[in-house]
């Protein structure tokens, strides 16, 4: 009797463990499916919205007898939309190459300070027009050995995210220094911040905080995936923490 009870409880134990792993695996599968669904939705939105705006602007110029100022404004908006589409395509291509392991990250020594300055200047023009939105504190002459193209995508993604999630004209901090001989980049924003439960998930491919249908921000869930993968291939660490009183801080330390 005792033997039967013993065998029974072992069987029950194994069954419970099996059920637990099955449950975890189904949950993971569901999450992945949901993320892919979100990715499709966001890509649809991200591709079609600028396309619709460009098409409508051009049709408006063709159909209407507009003054020069209105025409210029429509054309400038279209140029910005084209850049947005270009960034999206670049991100998608880079993410795909990283996934396929077909990208080799050609490394060379270059001036990271110059690159960060160039990127903050470019993004400052595209922000809401307030002079103080991006506040760069860049120590000159910080050098790293790495892939310039991939690392510029890292910096662009981080600063763009900070601008995107900040309120209108809230300050975004970009700080580059040499800390204990290691290049150190910090990007801070005063946006809503990232809940603790999501801090580990935001670097997953396609992951985006919240529901895609009630999107507050543009994006596809590829940016931080690229950031993580590129930094891994450069032996650099990235961490995310809360800003006070609100917002997020991303810190990168190169080895």
């Amino acid at each position, binding site marked *: 009797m005792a033997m039967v009870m013993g065998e029974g409880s072992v069987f029950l134990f194994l069954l419970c463990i099996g059920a637990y792993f099955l449950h975890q695996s189904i949950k993971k599968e569901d999450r992945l499916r949901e993320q892919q669904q979100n990715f499709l*939705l966001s890509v*649809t*939105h991200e*591709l*079609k*919205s*600028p*396309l*619709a*705006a*460009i*098409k*409508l*602007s051009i*049709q*408006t110029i063709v*159909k*209407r007898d507009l003054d020069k100022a*209105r025409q210029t*404004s*429509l054309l400038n*908006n*279209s140029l*910005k*939309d084209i850049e947005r589409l270009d960034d999206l395509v670049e991100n998608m291509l880079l993410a795909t190459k990283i996934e396929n392991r077909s990208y080799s990250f050609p490394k060379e020594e270059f001036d990271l300070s110059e690159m960060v300055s160039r990127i903050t200047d470019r993004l400052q023009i595209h922000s809401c027009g307030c002079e103080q939105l991006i506040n760069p504190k860049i120590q000159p002459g910080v050098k790293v050995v790495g892939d310039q193209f991939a690392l510029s995508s890292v910096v662009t993604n981080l600063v763009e995210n900070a601008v995107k999630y900040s309120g209108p004209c809230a300050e975004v901090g970009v700080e580059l220094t040499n800390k204990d001989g290691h290049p150190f980049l910090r990007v801070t924003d005063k946006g809503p911040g990232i809940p603790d439960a999501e801090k580990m998930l935001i670097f997953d491919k396609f992951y985006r905080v919240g529901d*895609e*249908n*009630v*999107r*507050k921000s543009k994006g596809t869930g590829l940016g931080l995936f690229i950031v993580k993968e590129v930094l891994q291939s450069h032996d650099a660490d990235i961490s995310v923490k809360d800003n006070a009183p609100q917002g997020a801080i991303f810190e990168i330390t190169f080895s």
Partner: protein
Amino acid sequence: MPQKLRILLVEDEDHLLDAIKLNLELEGYKVHAVKDGKTALKVFKEERFNLIILDVMLPEMDGFQVCETIRLENTEVPILFLTAKNTSEDRVMGLKKGADDYLVKPFNLEELILRVGILVKRSMKADDLKELNSYKIGDKTIYFNSFELKQDDGLIVPLTKKETMLLKLLIERKNEAVSREQILETVWNYDVYPSTRTIDNFILTFRKYFEPDQKNPVYFHSIRGVGYKFTDIH
């Protein structure tokens, strides 16, 4: 296009919003543009619109929810979805939530303007219908809301619902021939198929009520092979 026609535009993409607003304003509409679902509902409660143009993927509250909430209190204002979501499931969902039309991004400017024109026209017709509460034919007045016919001497004749609906339809289209099909669609809603005699009987009843000489009608005419016509001689 008169200035009084008002459109609520809900779109979170700045450049698209600017371009649509510019075009609608050039067409003569007054446009109130907002960028998220919650503000759209707030503005809708405070102002009156002839058309709502609604994106689906919006901050705070998605367009489907906005449409559903509007339909709880207003079934008449036309709603046009303008969205990147282009599957047939999305379209069905939009129409189920109470939208009147669905246009997928990127769209043609000409098509947008035409669709907007059609929907706004429909909303104006609905407004006109609402305003028609009574109508005087000769010495008798029809009260559409209370289903009554009041004579000058104070005598009140009750009207049936279908009689009232048919009178309203013919009066709204006065001096125009109204086909049997249009009458069936509006008054009988295609639920039952009355014979030609049924509509004829209604017209005979109207003649009895209003015509001074039923054999030589001046108000209610049958038009052979087409339908019926109401003529206002005053």
